[in-house]
């Protein structure tokens, strides 16, 4: 595929349920980001991977949120015991690290809209 893909596109969960959101970055992209976008807000950073290493998880709102990228490609964002305040669009972005800034452009996926009832 040409771009970043995410699945599922929509997820409805009952409060307390665990969910797993998947991101397929652009092939060869080293960096992968997760963002959370609440209704009416801009995206907010959750966590960052460089290959399989999670270098920054300072944006994860609680220990119920967990992300992994075990082989340095596909990433999964897991939310345990979902709460209503977790309802948001979860965006994944990838970028190709290079020596020139132009290669740091982040390409975004379509997002997963999570609704917690």
């Amino acid at each position, binding site marked *: 595929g040409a771009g970043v893909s995410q699945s599922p596109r929509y997820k409805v969960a009952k409060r307390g349920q665990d969910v797993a959101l998947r991101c397929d970055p652009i092939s060869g992209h080293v960096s992968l980001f997760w963002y959370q976008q609440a209704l*009416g*807000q*801009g*995206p907010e950073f959750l966590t960052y991977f460089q290959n399989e290493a999670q270098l*920054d998880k300072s944006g994860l709102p609680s220990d119920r949120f967990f992300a992994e990228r075990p082989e340095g490609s596909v990433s999964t964002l897991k939310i345990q015991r979902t709460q209503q305040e977790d309802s948001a669009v979860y965006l994944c972005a990838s*970028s190709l690290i290079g020596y020139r800034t132009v290669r*740091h452009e*982040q390409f*975004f996926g379509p*997002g997963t809209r999570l609704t917690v009832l």
Partner: protein
Amino acid sequence: AQRVTQPEKLLSVFKGAPVELKCNYSYSGSPELFWYVQYSRQRLQLLLRHISRESIKGFTADLNKGETSFHLKKPFAQEEDSAMYYCALRGNTGRRALTFGSGTRLQVQP
């Protein structure tokens, strides 16, 4: 702490009118500034960045370090410019994540 402020939730103009989408930021160093756009039912995509000093789809943005602003401008709006516009910042300390503003919806009326 880094912060991006877009004071307008909605900006409505008529076709052919000039457009200015405001963006102010706070950051203690020299940031990189970006404008991202999201058209209806499409994903977020990069419109332009201050480093490139380019004009994309007729839009330009100049980084004003004195006023800590990065306003997006277009002299003559087109209906196809209707979209959500997000200003974003990336610091120069190695952290590659973007800090976004809350976005401005631009409506260009015929």
